[in-house]
């Protein structure tokens, strides 16, 4: 039971959502944009978040999009992880989202919610980070389209009052040979010791993104340069990639830093094998 009250709004258009947020914010009512709502509900139950109002984005048609247009795959921020998985339109994203929490929760969790949530893993970001992906963002100035990595630096990072409407992905990016692995401490369902996504692009170069390894999901230019260094044997590429990590490795109750690095090494070997060896 949530022990405090909040107001509920469900706009039918992007403009209505932005306007409603601005109005409630100006009145000091601490509005939250609301996607699947799983994190807001569980955290509100514990009084860890106390919204004065929630603005449910699932009534906005653009946020519920899931299909192709203009040579790109369009996924609304309000599409659920289960819908993306079932659609088969972006198998790597379906697979990554299919390992977030459990299936019944995936029926509720939205793509936008996973990217914007406070739980640090945000595993649905990994296939987007390695794809040619753009974000469609709504704000007081209207809609703008920006590279996904411009608004996702480990977590969706938008000015107050803005929200993610959609992502769109170059169709060929959704078809690249890909690898996904999620390693957990004990059970299949759990936070990742390591979640990894790797693809091999049309030029044969590897792109890789990781979650659970450092404090937030990342894709690293330096790490990829190491993996793609044609002068080196695979084992040396992996050594160099591990030496190129962009941030300290997590050391917590899920796994020690040393164990995470052990898992990373093995996973990189599996990924290179799965994608056909070195370029």
């Amino acid at each position, binding site marked *: 039971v949530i022990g405090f009250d909040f107001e509920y709004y469900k706009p039918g258009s992007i403009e209505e959502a932005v306007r409603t947020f601005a109005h409630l914010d100006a009145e000091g009512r601490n509005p939250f944009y609301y996607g699947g*709502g799983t994190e807001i509900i569980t955290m509100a139950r514990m009084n860890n978040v106390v919204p004065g109002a929630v603005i449910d984005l699932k009534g906005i048609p653009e946020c519920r999009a899931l299909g192709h247009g203009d040579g790109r795959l369009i996924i609304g921020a309000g599409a659920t992880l289960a819908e993306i998985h079932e659609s088969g339109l972006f*198998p790597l994203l379906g*697979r990554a989202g299919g390992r977030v929490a459990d299936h*019944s929760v995936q029926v509720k969790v939205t793509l936008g919610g996973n990217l914007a949530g406070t739980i640090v893993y945000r595993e649905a970001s990994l296939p987007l980070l390695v794809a040619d992906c753009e974000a469609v963002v709504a704000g007081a100035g209207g809609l703008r389209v920006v590279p996904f990595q411009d608004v996702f630096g480990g977590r969706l990072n938008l000015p107050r009052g803005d929200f993610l409407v959609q992502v769109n992905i170059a169709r060929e990016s959704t078809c690249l*040979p890909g690898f996904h692995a999620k*390693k957990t401490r004990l059970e*299949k369902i759990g936070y990742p010791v390591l979640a990894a996504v790797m693809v091999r692009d049309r030029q044969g170069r590897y792109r890789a993104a990781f979650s659970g390894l450092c404090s937030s999901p990342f894709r690293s230019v330096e790490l990829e340069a190491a993996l793609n260094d044609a002068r080196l044997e695979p084992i040396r590429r992996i050594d160099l990639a591990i030496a190129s990590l962009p941030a300290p490795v997590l050391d917590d109750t899920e796994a020690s830093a040393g164990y995470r690095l052990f898992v990373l090494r093995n996973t990189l070997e599996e990924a290179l094998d799965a994608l056909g060896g070195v370029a």
Partner: protein
Amino acid sequence: MLFEMRGPGALELDVNGEKRTVLARPADTLLHVLRSQLGLTGAKPGCENGDCGACTVLIEGWPVKSCLILAVEAVGRQVTTVEGLRDTPIQRAFVQKQAFNCGYCTSGFIIVCHSLATIHPNADQETVDHWLQSNICRCTGYREIGEAVGLVLGTPASEAPGAGAPSPVDGAQESTLC
């Protein structure tokens, strides 16, 4: 068109094929409203944190943990609780296989299994495992639950979830795309 609910008020819900009016706060979960206002106690409060699955109901045929959905979110959508299932194949299979011990998790399991059998009647083992991992049986009666699912899906009991060795901890999964 902006829908707004600024305080406690009447909501019309479509539950088990009937229009029902409830008085709810915007912050009330569907689980709470189903139990306290409609007397539909088949959905069980367990963890109330989205982990255990005992409160699972169907929303438009899909399994959703009713502790993770606000009652107001269910307006305009078909809600089915275990009370709305009558003599379905999975219910008969649970009886046949005695797939319950204390019974607290049973309604959630039946809802998930019914949805799975409806949406994916030819589900492969990976899909069955994926769906059933949403629910926890603290009596650990997974073997019989797995056999009941196997009976409905037509898979041999030896291949039913929980019938054999525990699933290995997941490792690498290659995606063969397009």
